[in-house]
């Protein structure tokens, strides 16, 4: 499934993550997935939430620099080889993965992974063809 992901630019200093989660909690926004990518002086926090528009306006009102991009969530069976099967489908479809991480929530015995690719639509099609959603 294609989802909206918010990426927030942060300087690497203590307390930045807490500031963001606090603002979102106060606005009653639910975070489904969270991932941190860091360079030496700055980083990105990527989140998937229940209300992207509201989260964006909360973040911008509080002076954070954030951007929305499309990512793909994929249900991976929570047993050995589950991720491997999905990775094979993606590689066979010749789709390049920019980065990936896992969702906090599990559902129906499936672990949900988030994939960022240049072409979310192509990825979704390739997965659907193999019965993966």
């Amino acid at each position, binding site marked *: 499934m294609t989802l909206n992901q918010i990426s927030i630019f942060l*300087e690497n200093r203590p307390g930045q993550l807490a500031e963001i989660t606090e603002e979102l909690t106060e606005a009653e926004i639910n975070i489904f997935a969270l991932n941190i990518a860091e*360079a030496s002086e*700055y*980083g*990105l926090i990527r989140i998937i939430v229940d209300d992207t528009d509201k989260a964006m306006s909360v973040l*911008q009102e509080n002076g954070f620099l*954030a951007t929305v991009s499309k990512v793909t969530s994929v249900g991976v069976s929570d047993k050995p080889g589950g991720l491997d099967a999905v990775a094979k489908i993606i590689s066979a479809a010749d789709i390049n993965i*920019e*980065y990936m991480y896992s969702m906090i929530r599990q559902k129906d015995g499936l672990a949900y992974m988030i994939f960022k690719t240049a072409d979310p639509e192509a990825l979704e099609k390739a997965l659907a063809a193999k019965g993966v959603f």
Partner: protein
Amino acid sequence: MGKFYQQETECMPREEIRKLQGERLVRIVKHVWDNVPYYKAKMEAAGVTPDDIKGLDDLHKLPFTSKEDLRETYPDGMLAVPKNQAVRIHSTSGTTGKRVVKYYTQEDIDCWSECCARAIVAAGGDENDIVQVCYGYGLFTGGAGLDGGSHKVGALTLPMSSGNTDRQIQFMTDLGATILCCTPSYAAYLSECIVERGYRDKIRLKAGIFGAEAWSEEMRHDIESKIGIKAYDIYGLTELGGPGVSFECEEQKGMHVNEDHYIAEIINPKTLEQLPNGTQGELVFTNLTHQAFPVIRYRTRDICVLNDAPCSCGRTHIRMAKPMGRSDDMMIVKGVNVFPSQIETVLIDQGYSPNYQIIVDRVNNSDTIDVNVEMSPERISDNLGRIAEMEKSLVAALKAMLGIYVKVHLVAPKSITRSEGKAVRVIDKRKI
């Protein structure tokens, strides 16, 4: 042809301007000789008397005036009229050493207001306009200068002074301001706020007159495109009387010097020789009409070029380029001359915010230069690698411009402290 505040003067044939300047120079030199012992002593030391000054061609005989002269004679050693004829002072914001105090007679203020009125009319203003002045009022010349100009034009003046951005934007939208006057860094900040709050369609601004600090062409385009106005430069120094020494016309190709009130010269800052028009050098100004506190051949320290080619606007007064930098601003880092304006040009070119801070230091006897750059919405990505690549290309572009390695730090938006007046761009820890 555009509109003029004083067409006859602003479009006077050049020979007539030079003749007028010559006559006024003779008069002002006599005035300071008679009334300012400090000037008389300087002229005597240079072996020149008022009798030697017969016209413009004799200007080069006169000694220069420096900021140090003005500080040395603080507070009233250069006053050229009895104090009871002066009606107001303005003063520089000098944080180091003594301030410079400029005195004005009522006539001086009227001339100054006319100079600013010419700038407002050149920016498309008339009595139907609403002019929002958010330069500081008080000792600073910015507020009083444009306020006076706006009154002469007959526009409705909003004397906002600087700061309180919420109130600025509220008045701007509620009262429908059409011309904005402030520092370029504050204009950049205001336009960012206007866009962020979604007020772009609620404002009625058509033009801005921005001065009192150096700004680049890129910064102009940035402000112009953000809020849909034409941004005009205006030049002046407190020592000369304030803003309105020169101003841009609709051509936006150099600022017309109000030559009936000022003589502009370019000199070689080392040999102090006059240089021909079109040559880069230090800008020097002489007050021709100021009665209370005229300065003769004042060295501005601004590096600049004069252009006497005819302008399509119809004004005949000589144009000065945007100063390339102040010799005060110039830093020597690793033996290389660095102007903050060069760094600003690269930042805007590369899509970063024009809000930055330069930190120069000396580590193990070697100079270091760091630039804190605010991350901009145009440069954010969900991909860290892409941000790092853009950072690398910024470092490369800075190296290409300056010839030295600059360490770049990407910081969060609005994390660099902004003064709502003049921006603090450079911290040189080597001097602390």
